[in-house]
């Protein structure tokens, strides 16, 4: 059994999604800087990054957007973060605006960021895969270091998106 840290999860899930055709738009590794910008979602006008939700990884494929929280092990607080983001249109709009201002996501003709075909949140960690109601669950096996995906129970997804998520 090999225990891993969050940096490993970041790199491993990134590679697994890229192989499936996902494009990395933004992210924040647990340590150090990468080639990805750090983006945030926030409501209100507090200064700096106070009160902001900064996703660990944001990826896109064919107009779908996936926002991930990463941890070495399963974390209920990450599930809560996913639910908070997915249930707040203001937070989603804020995130899309930040991505679009960095030219990582397109602006529509109205001057507002385009709405994704599907907005998905998810978690990735090492451990047993979990059934989540609204978020995708990516779990890295401790025994063979392979990823498994569990789709959200209450969110219908298109067939092409299901294929892209099955890593």
């Amino acid at each position, binding site marked *: 059994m090999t225990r891993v840290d969050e940096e490993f999860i970041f790199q491993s899930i990134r590679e697994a999604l890229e192989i499936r055709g996902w494009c990395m738009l933004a992210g924040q590794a647990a340590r*150090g*800087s*990468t080639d990805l910008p750090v983006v945030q979602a926030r409501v209100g*006008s507090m200064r700096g990054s106070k009160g902001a939700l900064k996703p660990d990884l944001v990826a896109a494929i064919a107009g779908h957007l996936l926002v991930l929280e990463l941890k070495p092990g399963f974390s209920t607080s990450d599930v809560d973060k996913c639910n908070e983001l997915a249930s707040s249109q203001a937070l989603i709009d804020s995130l899309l605006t*930040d991505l679009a201002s960095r*030219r990582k996501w397109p602006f529509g003709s109205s001057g507002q960021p385009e709405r994704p075909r599907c907005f998905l949140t998810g978690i990735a960690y090492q451990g047993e895969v979990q059934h989540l109601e609204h978020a995708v669950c990516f779990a890295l096996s401790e025994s063979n270091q392979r990823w498994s995906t569990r789709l959200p129970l209450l969110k219908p997804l298109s067939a092409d998106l299901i294929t892209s998520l099955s890593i």
Partner: protein
Amino acid sequence: MELEIWGDSMLESEWFRDLEPRLARCRIYSIGDRATNPDHIEHLILYDRPDIILCCNGVPVLVLEKTREVPTGHNIGQRLGRIVRALECNTPALTLLPFRARKHGLHTGICEINVRVLRMAIRMGTLHETPCLFIRWPVDAHGELVGDGSEAPGLRGLVEHSIDHGLELSAAPVVSTLEQMEDHARSIEVARASYVTPPASVEVRSAPRAVGRAGHRTVCIYTIEMTPAACRRQDPYTGMQFLYDYLYCRDGTDVANKHTALVLHFPRLTQSQFVSANPNDPLRKSSLWYATANELWFSDGEIVLR
């Protein structure tokens, strides 16, 4: 030749390894907590942990710091301690960051590097006779950072030269980088004359009395408006104290070598409030408050350090 990379982040260590073919097979080590590393690493992390330490045959030949942040205002302060420490250990220091890039948020716009940082780096390198270089992370026409920083002009050449010869001030890639820093600093100073003088939080003037053990008659007072409710902190102030020290006080490599005394002024704190929150404990980062100033001034008294 045995090369080792010591890093604070595995992702950054692997990024650094990919900069130079000869690093491809070298070992990567994680910088541990204080007192758990070999001596040559411990010396370099006395103030803080840099992102990368490159060692050649057990001797550090380069310290590298890397950040995507645009270093406006005093944001850069949190990184300066580790850079200063590298120079104190006669290890060349490279900092990779954007000189000019877009900041995002409510008031988005193009932001410039605090040019005093470049001036400090040039001055510090001269005093320590060791290169302290800032390299520009490229940005696109919109001000967004390009790539992962490995495309920065001159970076690969400096790493290569570190391995082959060690970086000295007279080395061609060092001279070239220093010229770029100087050119950028000058262009900003022409556009914004306020950078030529100290910022609002710093005053250089005649001392009201003899300051420090050397009895300085001129003093550089750095006013830090920490409050009792939020005074257990170091960043970015302890880094910025080094910047002002090298720019306005120092004339040598030792903290005692000053033509002007450095005073850290805490008008909202009593001495006991400060000391209880920030003890001079060498195992804690709070010891940086005591690293270079001559005196600390509080609302109810002062501490003479040197």
